[in-house]
């Protein structure tokens, strides 16, 4: 199984709390509320974005099928983008 690696889309910002995650899409200043279950993925995507292109050292746990589905849903919303270093 190939693990998709996603970074937070440029200009996006994330805050996660126990009752949900709020994402700001800076270019259009849209704000999304996502279930708290997205928190691990969003934090991972945020960490990758902060590391820029040099993420070869970043360790990502193999995603579960459910995680992959969540990543794809985030990508469809424009919240995460495939990271340049990913191996899809």
């Amino acid at each position: 199984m190939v693990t998709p690696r996603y970074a937070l889309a440029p200009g996006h910002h994330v805050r996660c709390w126990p009752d949900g995650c709020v994402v700001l899409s800076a270019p259009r200043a849209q704000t999304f509320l996502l279930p708290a279950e997205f928190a691990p993925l969003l934090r991972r995507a945020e960490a990758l974005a902060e590391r820029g292109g040099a993420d070869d050292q970043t360790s990502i746990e193999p995603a579960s099928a459910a995680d992959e589905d969540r990543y794809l849903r985030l990508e469809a919303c424009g919240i995460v983008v495939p990271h340049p270093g990913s191996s899809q």
Partner: protein
Amino acid sequence: MKIADCAAPDFDRRLAAKGIPLPCGPYVVRIVSSLPHLASALRFHYADFELADEPGFIDFEVRVDPPSALRRILRPQVSFTCDGRAPFQPLPLAHAFPMLEWGLNWVISSHAHDHLVLHAAVLERDGRALILSADPGSGKSTLCAALVQAGWRLLSDELTLLDLESGQCRPIARPISLKNESIEVVRALGPQQPIGAPCFGTSKGTVAHLRPPASSVAQRAIPAMPAWVVFPRFGRGHGLGVEELGPAQGFMELARHSFNYSLLGEAGFAALARLVDTCSIHRIGFGHLDQVLPVIERLRGAGTA
């Protein structure tokens, strides 16, 4: 000298000629008007404000006068202009004071972009601020007036200015706008409530304003750190319902009640995140002030934030 100490004819002449500078949150607004009934309302509602001879920098020039000489006589009207712009359609002449107050709200909410501006009342007790954010008709102003009566300091009835750097709420301390049934509800809160003459038939129904307490005016430069956010929801005959909200839910609700959250981008996002991180957040449904006031006192006693 306070406005209350100024002789009425002198005040009215000055209002019509060079204008009266009034502090309006972080701004100074110079108000000019030739309307005697507006002058009278200003003297009543802003009685405890200082009348400065040398006001310093004037941020905005506001004029409230008939749009033309004809409109002084034929179906008399009044218009509000700010720095020469007229953001609203003229209103009946009798609505001059509500129009001024609505116009001042517009001035702040349209320009205070060094703050996150929320459609919310804000009060202070023991150095901590309570933010009451709600849609129109939710009982926000009535509850705000009742809390003032109970000893809370008024920072604002209508607009919360959240400083982007410090996270503190900046006071505006202007009259509390009351509508329809809430006028009599507030009048019944105690003897001699300083409520001005009601204005009938406005777009919001009957409107009257409650003068801000002198102590709130005197402390209008002292900000307060927010500790509680409440979303009040009045419903006639409703029972009490208290629901604690998580930070994410509170964030989304506050973003909806902000005038400039989208405009501020990351700075607004960070300010709201800090606000929900440091406050307890509740939605309170109520049918009577006697239900909701003890709940707010309990929140205060719990010492959140």
